């Protein structure tokens, strides 16, 4: 048993050594995954042809509020295109900047502010995505939720329909469907 004891102490000291190793720079894997979700949405949602001015007009993913993705969203869409529309990322500083985009990721905590943004794009074919509480019930179309350490999605189908967006049944099957809460 002396040998085992030795081995365990060896293990202990090694793990302590390992624990001291420097962590790498901060980037969240959570948002890496969400960035890929955003990219994948382009395959599962149909935008009306009218949402593009010309056949080679870019497909715009907009970010409203603080950008949580770092460079990751850019890396994800680099070189990608959707039926000839190159994918581009635009970051909007203020509500007034928000204009023609196809997906709008809203990273704002304040409910009232979210409402302003949603109102601004209301009726336009813009897929609104967010991950704050009640985002979908408030009228946002897709909300990311973290459940048991995994990313799930919640879809407000009615809101998407009103914006003339068709969400594939394949995506719907994986999502929880909610309705806008009138209030």
């Amino acid at each position, binding site marked *: 048993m002396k040998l085992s004891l030795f081995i365990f102490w060896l293990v202990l000291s090694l793990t302590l050594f390992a624990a001291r190793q420097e962590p790498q720079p901060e*980037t969240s894997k959570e948002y890496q995954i969400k960035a890929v979700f955003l990219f994948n949405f382009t395959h599962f949602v149909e935008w009306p042809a009218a949402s593009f001015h010309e056949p080679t007009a870019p497909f715009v993913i907009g970010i409203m509020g603080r950008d949580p993705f770092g460079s990751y969203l850019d890396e994800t869409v680099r070189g990608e295109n959707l039926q000839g529309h190159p994918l581009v990322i635009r970051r909007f500083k203020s509500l007034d900047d928000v204009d023609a985009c196809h997906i709008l990721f809203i990273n704002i905590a304040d409910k009232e502010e979210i409402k302003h943004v949603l109102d601004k794009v209301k009726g336009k074919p813009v897929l609104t995505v967010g991950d704050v509480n009640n985002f979908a019930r408030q009228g946002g179309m897709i909300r990311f939720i973290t459940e048991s350490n995994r990313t799930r999605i919640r879809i407000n189908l009615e809101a998407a329909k009103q914006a003339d967006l068709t969400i594939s049944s394949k995506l719907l099957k994986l999502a929880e469907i909610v309705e806008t809460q009138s209030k």
Partner: protein
Amino acid sequence: MIRQQHCLLLNRAPLFRLVRLVLTVILSIMLMPYDAFCQSQDLLPVDTLKKLSMEELMNLEVISVSKRFEKLAEAASAIQVITKEDIQRSGATSIPEALRLATNLQVAQKNAHDWAISARGFNTDLANKLLVLIDGRTVYTPLFSGVFWDRQDYLLEDIDRIEVISGPGSTLWGANAVNGVINIITKKASDTQGLYIEAGGGTLLNDFIGLRYGASLSPDISLRVYGKYFDRHDAVFPDGTDASDSWRMGQGGFRMDAKPSAKNTFTFQGDYYNGKVNLSTGGNSDVYGSNVLGRWSHAFSDHSEMTFQLYYDRASLTQDVPESRTEDNSIVLAPAGTLKDDLDTYDFNLQHNVGIGKSNRVVWGLGYRYTHDVVENAPGLAFSPNRLDRNLFSVFVQDEIKLMKSLLFTLGTKIEHNDYTGFEYEPSTRLQWNVTSKQTLWSSVSRAVRMPSRIDRHVRLPTPGFSPIVDNLLIGGANFRSETVIAYELGYRAQLGSKVTGSIATFYNEYDDVRSTSLSPPDPVYGLQFPLFYENNLEGETYGFELNITYQVFDSWRLRGGYTLLKEDIRVRPGKTDFNNALNETADPKNQFSLQSSLNIFKNLELNAGLRFVDSFQFNTSGVADTVSNYAELNVKLAWMPIKKMEISITGQNLLHNHHAEYVISKPNPSAEIERSVYIKVAYRL
């Protein structure tokens, strides 16, 4: 075997001390302050993430550390994953039936309750080159290094996935992963919340019921308990008469998962089962056992995670052994009797994944397994010694080195020490080239060993009725060594467009010291050459490939096809002999083909079908080859969901023949065949 009614731990002081030591160490580590939570996360390659389906993305742990190590390793091996959806859609009623979905396995049903399952051949009656794990617990038996498939069960609804890796996995996975690894992973308790009930019955599966309830004890702790029972009808003999081999079994268990902090996860689980099998040869067999397992994973940082695992498993068997006679029936060699076996296994495992610098990922680990086996011998089947304690120590280290952005080189070895043959080395190297984000080319060379099992060294087929002329028909070989393989693999995995994924794995295996049966020198009076005994006089090569293609025809229709080619040349080493003429180790079809279709007719109506073709193959009857004919068989499941939480289904299995043979055990006794069958099932998820 003598059933030990009292506490085994107290009986074995050294073991008790070891367990206590382990617990002390774990406790002391737990008490150390590791509270500096670290925000940074391991970044995954963007191309890898983009390759994943939405389901797979949803299954990614947002905060994870070491899973990725496994994922990368898997990409460069002949792995096929049977998902929970595959299992549900197939209508499988047992783990072996679910394993038919992995086209890189050979699966043959022997009778109503037993299967022969192997990868890359050697699917003999006592198939012994596969490592099978259920949630990290090894389930092959050291009696013969094979698996008693009639005692491996679970509520299929709660199985998350089954990973099937063909080819040696010894470096990482450990003992007995000579030709492949089957890794059965159940869902986390947090994924099985609420009530689930299933019940049904049919022509072969007379009736079955399954029940599970899952609840959250706190936001961080989830628990489930389950129970199930089934009763299976007899298979038939070739002439259609009952084979008297019915099988019924009950099983229950629990699993608790806790994640008190982002850096610690705990799992505690256990199962108990009790089954009764009728035997075609007469009498019956009681199979019962239980296990408990605890696992703790701790993330020191994003680049360093350690997992400790402890389990205890008890497997018991009480089996009637028929009378044995000479071929002309004139002499009773041994009267009928009962064999009892109680096997206790204590296993400790530690694994540490750690990233060193930017281009090295090291995985290393330690393992210790102690088995205590007690056999109560039958007159015609015995083990000598009947009581045996065995120790297995193992240590492994593997480094994955990023040579270039898309080129990974993996080098590692496992060193094991067992009580039969001492030290064994199982090294492997692997090269993975990510040609593009959607294509991977990989190659590997590895060595694996199958250590001796009880049967190789200690089995006896006594013949008291013929004593003293012959005392035993067969005995284990006192000098039986480990069987070895050196495997060369080359594989390619690709996503072709958005609808097709495919993989091909080719292999060339060189075997040495494979088990053979030798004759004793003739006795001076009668010239009889008994007892037969085991030696290692076989050698040879096997080669072939496994092809697998998935085609998503429409959103609602998926096809999956598989083809496996296996060629074997196992022969007696020059100058040596084998009583079985090198026929006893290979009972494998050269060609296997399968096609599975999953179709959603409407949103609430699913039609699934699985067609399989298995080539004819040769098996051994005392040194002469006989043939099992080729066959094609079809399973179909139609499922209707009248409401979201309820599924009513009808499943037809083996629909193309009244009955067909998949395996033959011993001539001249007839072997059981598998009948066409139908069952109905109602499942309700609350």
